[in-house]
């Protein structure tokens, strides 16, 4: 199939305004009749549902949590980028566009990224108008900080809880539309099938998670905003409920899955402590503004108290290898460097899988500055330390507290121990410029699509993309499809397609419940996670990937013969929910390995051991792999079909990504 990205004509800076001026509109009297379903209530879904409601559409929004305010966007810590140039440090839409394309290792679509950079400024305005309490300077104006991979300060933040505050903003806008009767909210509901009639999306089948009731919901279009699939690794920084089920249902109905192998491993997470571990906790990238990453130079020092190791015996390896960006290199680079040091045997901590993140220099620097502003002459070392710790506390207090609670160590006095962990997935459903998938009437927004981050996402860009898609892009672009639907009556949910879809959902649930095997859902999930982490994780090779595909196939077979799901279909049954999700993760895991095996290059988060430069850095192959790999479902047990969208770069020159 030929993939048409529907990129508008004209110079890159004018594409979006041209598009908006020419896109078809739906008149207010028709909007009232047109129904749109939104799956997910995070930044992308919540913002989209609220905005579609404001525009006058009749919206139904679904989330599996007990309230839309709890979607996993809430856990984002560090910040949101916007090309406001409030710091007068040379920022612009072009520079944000450039940084994002370069940061993504030249594997994203230029037109989409430029639009993202353009609307980034509107997001900040919108959020401030909603009452989002961003950090401010004493003059009352907004504050900024720096994030990895860029040399300007363009990140807006609300302490270490930026995601929470932005989501509460979107949730408040959504709540207003719920009160106005424009959005009907379905909490504790999970989408379990997409319904198509005559080749067009016409609704979904959802399960009421409290009663177990299977419900039919018709619509003129469906918007997926169901988040990322990091939990395929079992251990990740994602919430326990984050899943790929909506995406996989769409994939099986003909939506292409793009670049599934692009996964982001975040460099600064609290290391694994034991087998029982259920999730990993992120320590925001913003910490790398002030924290310095190091390991001991000598193996003899590995088990020493880090405070006893003198300056000259420490290897600040990021500053040494990447002097231009130092501790603020992009995530993929920082993660690989940490893995490299630990693989060399220089890792610290109980398991040897950790490096230090040290704030002592920052504490001293801030302490001296504070002493100076408070007119303290010749401050003592102790005074400086006290003042410096206060500054650090005001910036990162909640993160330091969280670290101490989990590890029982005080990071103000002892350097943090950190190790990379799965955090975000750049891959997702293939979408065109309008965020439409390959299935007519089905849209994908936020992390669940593939579009903007290429092979690696820069810090503070996920919140930006989620809100850009939800507030500013999708509500405009979906009009071009819905304008053609104004004559379509309300969907009849007694149509045979709904009957059949409902039956297949019920059959699948009964199948899971009736296996009555010996292993729990978590047993399978943990095994899948281990295969993925070892063979499709931070570094990959052809042999490992081939083995992984076979192992996952065997594990899937065992799952469908030996899983034990307690309880019944018509009650609140969390194990049943998990079983359905793990079944989809098993299918996705194989697809990810296939994609990783196909991509014979190293790009961003996808690092193939066979393809690296003599210095060990990632080696792209622009001649053969400057394309989006969009996988098409070919049927049960059949190999998926690879479709390619060639990426063309007119406004940015492809270069080797260097942070040295």
């Amino acid at each position, binding site marked *: 199939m030929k993939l048409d990205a529907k990129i508008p004509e004209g110079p890159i800076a004018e594409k979006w305004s041209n598009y908006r001026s020419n896109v078809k509109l739906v008149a207010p009297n028709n909007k009232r009749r047109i129904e749109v379903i939104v799956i997910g209530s995070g930044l992308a879904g919540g913002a989209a549902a609220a905005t579609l409601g404001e525009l006058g559409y009749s919206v139904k929004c679904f989330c599996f949590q007990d*309230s839309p*305010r709890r979607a996993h966007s809430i856990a984002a810590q560090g910040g949101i980028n916007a090309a406001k140039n*409030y710091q007068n440090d040379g920022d612009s839409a072009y520079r944000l566009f450039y940084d994002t394309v370069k940061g993504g290792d030249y594997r994203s679509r230029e037109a989409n990224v430029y639009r993202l950079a353009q609307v980034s400024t509107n997001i900040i305005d919108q959020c401030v108008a909603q009452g989002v309490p961003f950090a401010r300077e004493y003059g009352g104006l*907004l504050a900024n900080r720096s994030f990895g991979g860029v040399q300007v300060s363009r990140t807006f933040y609300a302490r270490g809880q930026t995601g929470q505050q932005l989501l509460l903003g979107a*949730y*408040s806008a959504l709540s207003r539309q719920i009160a106005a009767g424009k959005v009907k909210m379905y909490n504790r509901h999970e989408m379990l099938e997409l319904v198509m009639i005559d080749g067009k999306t016409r609704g979904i089948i959802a399960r009421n998670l409290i009663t177990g009731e299977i419900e039919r919901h018709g619509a003129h279009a469906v918007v997926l905003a169901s988040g990322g699939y990091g939990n395929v690794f079992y251990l990740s920084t994602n919430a326990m409920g984050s899943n790929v089920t909506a995406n996989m249902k769409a994939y099986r109905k003909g939506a292409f899955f793009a670049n599934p192998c692009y996964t982001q491993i975040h460099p600064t997470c609290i290391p694994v402590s034991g087998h029982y571990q*259920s999730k990993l906790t992120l320590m925001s990238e913003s910490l790398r503004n002030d924290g310095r990453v190091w390991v001991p130079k000598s193996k003899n020092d590995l088990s020493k108290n880090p405070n006893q190791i003198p300056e000259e015996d420490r290897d600040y390896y990021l500053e040494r290898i990447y002097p231009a960006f130092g501790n603020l290199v992009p995530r993929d680079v920082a993660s690989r460097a940490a893995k490299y040091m630990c693989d060399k045997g220089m890792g610290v901590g109980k398991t040897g899988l950790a490096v230090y993140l040290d704030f002592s220099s920052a504490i001293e620097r801030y302490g001296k500055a504070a002493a100076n502003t408070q007119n303290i002459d010749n401050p003592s070392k102790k005074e400086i330390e006290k003042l410096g710790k206060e500054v650090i506390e005001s910036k990162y207090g909640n993160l330091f507290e*969280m670290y101490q609670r989990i590890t029982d160590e005080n990071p103000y006095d002892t350097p943090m121990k950190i190790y990379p962990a799965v955090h975000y997935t750049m891959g997702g459903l293939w979408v065109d410029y309008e965020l439409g998938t390959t299935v007519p009437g089905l849209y994908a927004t936020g992390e669940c699509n593939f579009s903007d981050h290429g092979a690696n996402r820069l810090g503070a860009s996920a919140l930006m993309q989620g809100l850009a898609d939800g507030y500013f892009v999708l509500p405009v672009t979906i009009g071009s499809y819905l304008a053609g639907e104004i004559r379509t009556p309300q969907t009849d949910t007694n149509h045979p397609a709904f009957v059949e879809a409902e039956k297949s959902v019920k059959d699948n649930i009964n199948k899971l419940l009736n296996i009555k095997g010996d292993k729990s859902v978590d047993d399978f999930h943990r095994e899948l996670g281990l295969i993925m982490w070892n063979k499709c994780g931070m570094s990959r090779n052809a042999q490992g990937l081939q083995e992984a595909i076979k192992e996952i196939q065997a594990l899937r077979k065992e799952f469908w013969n030996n899983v034990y799901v307690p309880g019944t279909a018509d*009650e609140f049954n969390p194990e049943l929910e998990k079983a359905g999700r793990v079944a989809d993760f098993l299918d996705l895991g194989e697809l990810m390995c296939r994609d990783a095996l196909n991509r014979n290059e190293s790009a961003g988060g996808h690092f193939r051991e066979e393809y690296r430069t003599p210095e060990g850095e990632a080696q792209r192959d622009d001649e053969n792999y400057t394309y989006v790999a969009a996988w098409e479902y070919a049927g049960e047990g059949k190999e998926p079909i690879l479709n390619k969208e060639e990426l063309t770069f007119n406004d940015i020159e492809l270069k080797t990504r260097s942070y040295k």
Partner: protein
Amino acid sequence: MKLTLKIWRQRNSNDKGKLETYPVDGITTDMSFLEMIDVLNQQLIKDKKDPVAFDHDCREGICGMCSMVINGRPHGPWEGTTTCQLHMRAFKDGDTVVIEPWRAASFPVIKDLVVDRTSFDKIIQAGGYISVNTGNAVDANSLPIDKTNAEDAFDAAACIGCGACVAACPNSSGMLFLGAKVSHLALLPQGEPEREKRVLNMMKTHDDEGFGGCTNTGACEAECPKGISLTNIARLNREYMRAAIGSEEEVR
């Protein structure tokens, strides 16, 4: 370490429910409280018994989903900590731990430790927002906001909506939650145009949903995992009086 767990089991909202006793073994101090429950549940599944249903999602203390009363205290013994961030270091070998759901008429039990908190959503829908449609905003820096006010607004906005305040309150009052939201928006100039209407409507819904009134016990503040201060209830009362007496807005 070995523990004895006494856990509230209730099949559904119609069931009466009772405490059941479960011994657990092999618990380490590095585990989180929920990971300890995971260990129990895996054991129950191996024994083909019904695992304990509990709400949880992010497991990093921000989504507000987890909700357990542990030895009589919402979110357990550690100050300023959600259940998911509570670690087993807080307990010692041989301890008996009693685990119950939030108990409040406005939060009916769905199953075991899972309760229905949609009444909180309804309070927000009654006015916990600023009426600004997408695309209507002016440049963010055209409205400087006093840093102290912005910080106070943030402190209030940090509420995660978990409901521990209600579970802790002898009156099952939701006024700390309500006070936090009203304060957040009342402290910001953007919230000014709807200030009176907001507090009146939200208070009305709070009462309609069956939450009790505040009697200044302070248990809510003591148990709040995010340190939301009682000042917010004082501000809520001021805002309410200001709107009820000092404005033209109708008290419903």
